[in-house]
Structure formats: C-alpha cells, structure tokens
C-alpha cells in the first residue's frame, strides 16, 4: 500500500519526468499533473501544507523520511538538489495554475534554473502564490565576540563557580569587569552586537553580562554619571548570583518567565551572599532581593536601582533563549507591550528610555 508521502513523491517525480520527455501539453504530462494535483489535495486535507525537505543524502516528505532504496525518492532527490531546491512547500493557496507553473519551472535543466536566478525567483516572477522554494541553508557566521565580552562571560562563569564552591564573593573583581561594559562609541556598538544575539539561556553567563550592560545603558539614557552607572552595573551583574547556591533543578524553576513570587529562593540566597548594611555598598543586596518584587508587585516600594535592574533583567530574560522558537518575545514586541502598559508596571519614563536606547543602538 502506498503511503501519502510515497504518493506525493511518486506523482511529483512522474509529472516532472513526463513534462521533460513530452512537453507540458502532451496528454501523458497532463495526466501525470492531474495525479499530482490529486495527491496534493489529499495531503492538504490532512495538513496545512505539503513539504519536501531535500538534501544529497535524504528526502523527507511531510516529516517522514523516505527509505534510501525508494525508487522514486532517489531520482527526485537528485532532480531537486541539482536545481538548488532544499525545501519545497505547497499550501492550500496554490491553485491548479500555480501547480502547473511550478512543475514546469522545476522541470527545466539545472543550468537553465541557475542562470535564471533560481526557482524561487522564477516562481515569484510568474506570480505563483502558495508555493515556496528555498535553497540550501547558507550558514551565516555569527559576529565574533569582543575580548571584553568574552572576558566578562568568563568572569560571570567563574563567579558562579566560586559561589557554588562556597567561596567568598569578590565584588571588587566584578567592578573591574563591569567597567569594561560601559564604553561609548564604537566599543559600545561592538557590545550591542553581542547583546542582541539572544541565543543564550537565562541561566547562562551572558545573562549577567547583558543585564549589566542594559542597566548601564538605561542609566546612561537617564543621564546618570559614570560612578553611579558602575554601581548599578555591579548590582545588575550580581542580581541572580543567588542561583549559584541552588541545586540545578531548582534554578530551572526560578527563571524570570516562571517566577510568580516577589522573593524567590535565589533572591533570598543572593541577599545572604551580598549582605551589606551600609548605604551604597548595599545596592547589590537591595537589587538582588527586589528585582522580582518590582516585576511581580510593581516598583512602589523598591529602590530606583532595583527598578532599573528589574527592567533590564525582564527585557533580557524574556527575549533570550537557546532556540528562537523558545523565546517568549522579541525586543520590539516586548518594548511595545511595556509601552502599552502590558506586563510588569515599570516606571513609564524608564520604559521610554529603554525604547530610546534600543532605537539608538539600531538593534
């Protein structure tokens, strides 16, 4: 019994072959196209789209891998790859004319396809709707990290490891690291390119580095002097240090997107680690203990430093994720929501400064 992926593959290959042999007007070609249309309609009745994923080594149809010895899969694979097709998607929007046009374009000689700028462009020029062709993925190199950024990441990881071992916190060292994260001009732009990548988890070292950077950029936007920015940066860098005192499994449950209480366990642990009761030196303790309070309850009882750290933390945490699909929001969407008064009630002026800072950085 032929499966649906098998039928889609067989009819597509048959249509391409018949057109190549006899031309599109021939009854044999006409019949094979009708068979393909029928298979596509059957598939679209079960799924929103029909998709072939192709490489030199395999052919996947509707998510199912066709056996290597399938007598239609092998030649179709070769046919499509030689024409630079890596993904072919057909949706319900595609009418019979679009299907015929796509088959006609795909049946051309590989040299002809390449010379005309690829099947994707040809489909677009022909006004075909509902059929998309993508070429093989071009691996785009990520921007190289600056030495300062990598050093800051290492420092964040080392700090976390030392806390896990039960060592004392070296806040002086944190200050040295944070000072490198408050540059201006070209150096700031280089840091922004790292901060906007978003491909890390909230529990990874980039989170501490990015929150410190964002908080200091907010402070710069507010017009605070450098010593105050550095104090804020240190507090921001250390805001989640309490995580290092928790078992790994507990850390997973204490990420910003899941925490619903004002004083989660990692904030308590950070408070104990950073305990200082003398004025400005207490800032890291205050910010670490208050940043979730600001997010959960609003900023009314929190120090301004905590409000800034909380905004930077929330922005960072809600837009990062190892995989794009796991990120709850993008920077643009998040800022739009905050400006509309959705989500935590950060001070409006802080949110507007955040929007201005991000716009200025052209992220």
């Amino acid at each position, binding site marked *: 019994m032929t499966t649906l992926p098998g039928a889609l593959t067989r009819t597509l290959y048959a249509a391409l072959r018949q057109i190549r042999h006899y031309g599109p007007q021939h009854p044999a070609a006409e019949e094979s196209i009708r068979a393909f249309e029928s298979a596509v309609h059957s598939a679209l009745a079960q799924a929103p789209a029909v998709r072939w994923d192709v490489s030199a080594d395999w052919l996947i149809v509707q998510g199912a891998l066709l056996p290597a010895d399938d007598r239609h899969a092998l030649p179709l694979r070769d046919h499509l790859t030689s024409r630079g097709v890596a993904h072919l998607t057909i949706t319900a929007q595609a009418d019979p004319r679009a299907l015929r046009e796509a088959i006609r374009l795909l049946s051309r000689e590989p040299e002809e396809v390449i010379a005309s700028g690829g099947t994707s462009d040809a489909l677009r020029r022909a006004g075909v709707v509902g059929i998309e062709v993508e070429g093989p993925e071009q691996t785009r190199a990520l921007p190289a990290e600056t030495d300062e950024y990598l050093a800051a990441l290492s420092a964040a990881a080392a700090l976390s490891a030392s806390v896990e071992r039960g060592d004392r916190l070296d806040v002086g060292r944190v200050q040295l690291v944070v000072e490198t994260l408050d540059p201006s001009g070209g150096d700031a732009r280089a840091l922004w390119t790292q901060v906007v990548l978003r491909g890390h988890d909230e529990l990874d070292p980039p989170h501490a580095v990015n929150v410190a950077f964002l908080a200091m950029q907010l402070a710069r936007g507010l017009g*605070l002097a450098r010593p105050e920015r550095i104090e804020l940066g240190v507090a921001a860098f250390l805001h989640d240090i309490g995580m290092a005192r928790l078992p790994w499994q507990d850390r997973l449950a204490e990420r910003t997107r899941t925490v619903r209480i004002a004083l989660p366990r990692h904030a308590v642990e950070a408070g104990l680690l950073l*305990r200082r009761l003398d004025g400005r030196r207490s800032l890291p303790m205050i910010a670490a203990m208050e940043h979730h309070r600001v997010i959960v309850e609003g900023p009314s009882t929190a120090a301004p430093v905590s409000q800034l750290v909380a905004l930077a933390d929330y922005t960072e945490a809600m837009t990062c994720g190892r995989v794009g699909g796991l990120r709850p929001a993008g920077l643009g969407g998040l800022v739009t929501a905050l400006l509309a008064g959705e989500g935590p009630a950060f001070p409006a002026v802080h949110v507007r*400064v955040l929007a*201005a800072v991000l*716009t200025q950085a052209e992220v």
Partner: protein
Amino acid sequence: MSGDREAERAEVARFEAARRAVRGVASAFRTLRLYPLHHARTAEALQAARAAIDAYTAGHGSLAVTATGQGLVFDFRTEPYVDDVVGDLARALRARAAPTVQFLRGVSLAELGEFVSALHLPPVQIQRAGGLGALLGAGGVRSVLIEIIGGAPPRGADLLEPLLEAVGAGAADRITAYLRQTGGDEAAMRELFRTFDRRIVTRPRQAQLDAWKAIGQSLAGLRVPWQAAVCAMIVRSVDEPWAASLASQWPPVLAASLVSQAGGTAQAQGRRVAEVLRTFHRTAPSTPLPVVEPPSPADLQEAMAAVAAWDERRLRAQAVRRLGELLPVIGAGELAGALAQLEAAVVVMVQEGDLPGLLAAMNGLTGAAVALTDARADAVRAMVQRMLSLGAGELFERTLTRPPGPAHPFVQAMQVAPQETVRVLLELAGDDDRLQVRGRAVDLLAHLAAGRGDLLVPHALDPRWHVARNAVTVLGRIGGPEMMPVLRAAMSHPGGHVRREAMQVASQLGTSDAMEALAEVLLRPDGETQAAAAHWLGVLGRPEAAGILIAVLEGSPISEQLDLKREVIRALGRLRAPESGDALRKVASRAGGELRQEAAAALARLQEGPA
C-alpha cells in the same frame, strides 16, 4: 522473501568483515609476541589489522567485541566466534579484566600498537595502572575503548574530558561511543550533557553551536531503539538549556526518522518529539521597535531626582528592611551573623538619630519573632531587647508625641513605610508595664492612621494579645462601621483582653451590626465573655437586644450562672425595653438575695421611663 534474503546476505557480509577485523587484531597480538613493536613484521600485522577495522567501520560503524569463555561475541549477533588465533586474544582480554573492546572508526596504527602491547603486560601491572582502559587512556589511545569488569563503567564526569576532546576533533564515532558508555542511564547522560554545556558555555557562540551540532550528528550513529530512547530523554529535558541546543542541532534526517518511528506505543513519544521540533523551528518573534518620542528633559530630571533621593541613609534603611525579610527564612548559623550585622547598623543609626532605619530594623525583628517558633525566635527577641537598650527605645519614646507638623519623624516614617511604622508603634504600645507609653503610642497611632484603618486590620488578629488589643483600640478611635468584620473576628480572639476591647469598640459604634455581633457572643459557652457581651449590649443601648437578653436570663435555672445573670439584669435595666418588665419581675419574685436586689434596681430604672 527477496528482502529477507538480502538482509541475510548483508548480515553474512557484516560478520565476515567483523571476523577479518578481529583476526587482524589477534594476528598483530600474536606477532608482537615474537617480534618487537617496531619490527617490520609487527608493523605489517598492525597495518593489516587497521585496514580490516577500517573496512568494517566504514560500512557498519564502530566494532564492539566481547570476550567470553566460548570465544568472541560481536555486538550485532549472539553466537560466539572462535578460531585458534582469536581464541588467544579472547583469553588475553579476559585475563586482563577487559572483556569488551570497542574499535572506533579512524583508529590509528599507534593506537592499535599501544593496545596489543598493553595486552602483553602482566595483569598485575595493568591493575596497578587502574585497568586497561586507564592505561590506554594515559597512552593517548582514544579510538579503542575498554569496558571493565567489576565496578561501574565510566559515567558522567569520567566521560567529560574524552567527550570534550572528541567533540573538539569532530570525531562522531568517538562521541557516539562515549554516549553509549553511559549505559543508557538517563541521569548519567543528563549530567554529562549538563556538565559539558557548562564547560563550553563561555566559548564563542559559533564554537558552541558547532559542538552541539557534532553531538547531534553523532546521535544518528546510535542504534535505533537506543537512539529513540536517548532522543526522547533529550526532548523530555527540553526545559534545560543544553537539551534545547542539542535537539535544535539534530540533522533533519534524524528528526524525521524519530517522528516516523512513532507508531503503536511510541506514538505519544513521537508526537512529543514532533511538537518540540516544531517549537524549535518557529521563528523567533521579531516585531520592529516602536517609534517613541524620547522622554522630555523634565521627565529625565524627575527620574534622576528620584534616584538621587535615595541617599546613604535611605539605602541603609532599605537594606535593613530587606535583611528583615531574610531573618525568618535563614538557618541559625546565618541568623547569628545577620543579627550581629544588624546590631552594628543599629548602633550607627541610633547615633545618627535615623528613625526610619530603626523602624525598619524593629519591624524586621518583630516580624521574624512572630514568624519563628524555634530557638531562632529567642535569638531575635533577645536582639529586640538589645536594640531597645542600645538607645533605640529612648529615641522611639522621645518621638511618641502628638505630631505638631510634617517634620515629625513618625509623620515622615509614615509616608515612607506606613506598614512598618504602624507595626512598630503597636509593638511599643504593647509594653503593658508602662501605661503612659501605651497611651502615647496609641494616641500617636490614632492620629497617624486616621483614614487608614486598613493598616491596622491585620494586626487586630495578631496572636499576641497586646498587639491585637492595641490595634482594636486604635481602630475604635479611627474606624467606622466598616470595621465591624474585623471587630467580629477580634471577638473570637484567644485573648480575653482582645475580645473585651472589641466588644467595647462595637458598643461604641452602636449599630445593629454591632448589636448582632455582641448577641452572637452572648450565646457562646464562655461565661466570662458572655457576661462582658451582656454588659456591652446594655451600654450599646438598643432595645431590640432585650429579647436575646431575656432568653439568656430564662434559658437556665435562676440559681445558675449568677455573674452572667447579674450583667443581663443590669443590661435589661439600661435598655428600658417594655418587654423587660415581666422578666425582671419574675426574677425579683423567685431569685435569691443579690439577684433580687439587681432586678429591683433594674425595674426601678425601667419605671423611670425611656432614657
């Protein structure tokens, strides 16, 4: 049928390739017995062995053999294989406690040389080196893996360094082999990936992606049932950063085969895999940034002023406040350190006359004293006493004056932290030995909390009677009828002082709600509270209460509950309700001396007419 024959032929070809590979190794092992390692004969034998292993691994992946008493067993079939050459190798392996050997793709001549040389060493020497695997590892052998007898195979941390090295070299075979060495132990594999992730997470992003891609591709080399189990475990752990990275780097062909394997009982698992992969391949949200006018200079000025307003003192008070939140949730050891730190801060705050800071400290301590029930509570209470003796008490008392204006410290404290101000004043008012202090504190609180009765409501139910009583007193001074629910609750407080205070306040309200609440208390089985309720019903003065009072009066023999009956009679006299006359006359005719006199006095008041 033709399919079966084809599979059979493939099985035979695989066995032949495996047989040649182990015979090659066994021959090299034998040759080394006769010639030194660098002799041309040995080199020739090693070369032949390597070629045979390469031929096998190119078509079938790594080759694993287990030495048994019956010969060597390959990992793809159960029947042992033995001949005179191979038998020698099998005995040597068993004698050196290394029954299972795995040859990976790309094994070098040097590695094979090290392996066969090691098999000629005395077992004791191998044992001293920590086993054949450790010996080979120390010699830089990475492509011949040994599974030891006795003791667990290397897991988790032991595999980390070899795995890092293999990933760095992009050696998919070796990565696969190391993953297999976890023995399918889910926890061990999870820990291995987690640790691995932590080691590479500070590397450049591209290097991290490459590493996960290498591992993702190596999963394709696992055998099918085990592969599905490992991938399912990864999908189950998808909340973990490493799992997201790894699953997102699966080659599409692996993803497709995982999904298509789903059938029968594995269907749900397949659906889950597909669902997770679909999530991964969703594009990241990418709304453009909104166009927003930057804040005006005036707004920025205001925001900066808000930051500047938090000076050293205010930040210290805030830190003290936060420390107060920690006190109830930390262990005894840390509590001692925190209290010592707080004491030092209190000394400075007393010297500086920093009332908000001291209030924050007092608030934190008293909150912890209530929340804690073990020895830590004693330590906190002792700290409260020390704090008051350090001069904080004098500072508080000096300021317990009715505020002349907004500069009064408690007025300012009320603006910054109203809840803790109320709480501390209630604590101070609780010192029953010094009525003057209580009176001043209650006066001050009534003034400060006017219109903010909500701040006192939670304290009216405090388990400590003096705090609850004072809260009720202040509520009585500032509150209106909307306070009735909390007064009703306070009438059930375990402390008699609180119940009586609540009844008194209710009687001052004079509403029908208050009357009903007092009437409910009148029906409780506690004689003393009932008597108080009767008294305050009389003071409240609503004639509708006469009915319930008469019911209580007549509900039991006249000679019982004399104290309660006396209060009821007095209340009936005060209420001057017309229906009270008969009830009082009955008492006057039947009761003993004291009650008869009370009834007569009440009747006399009744006859005076309405009040």
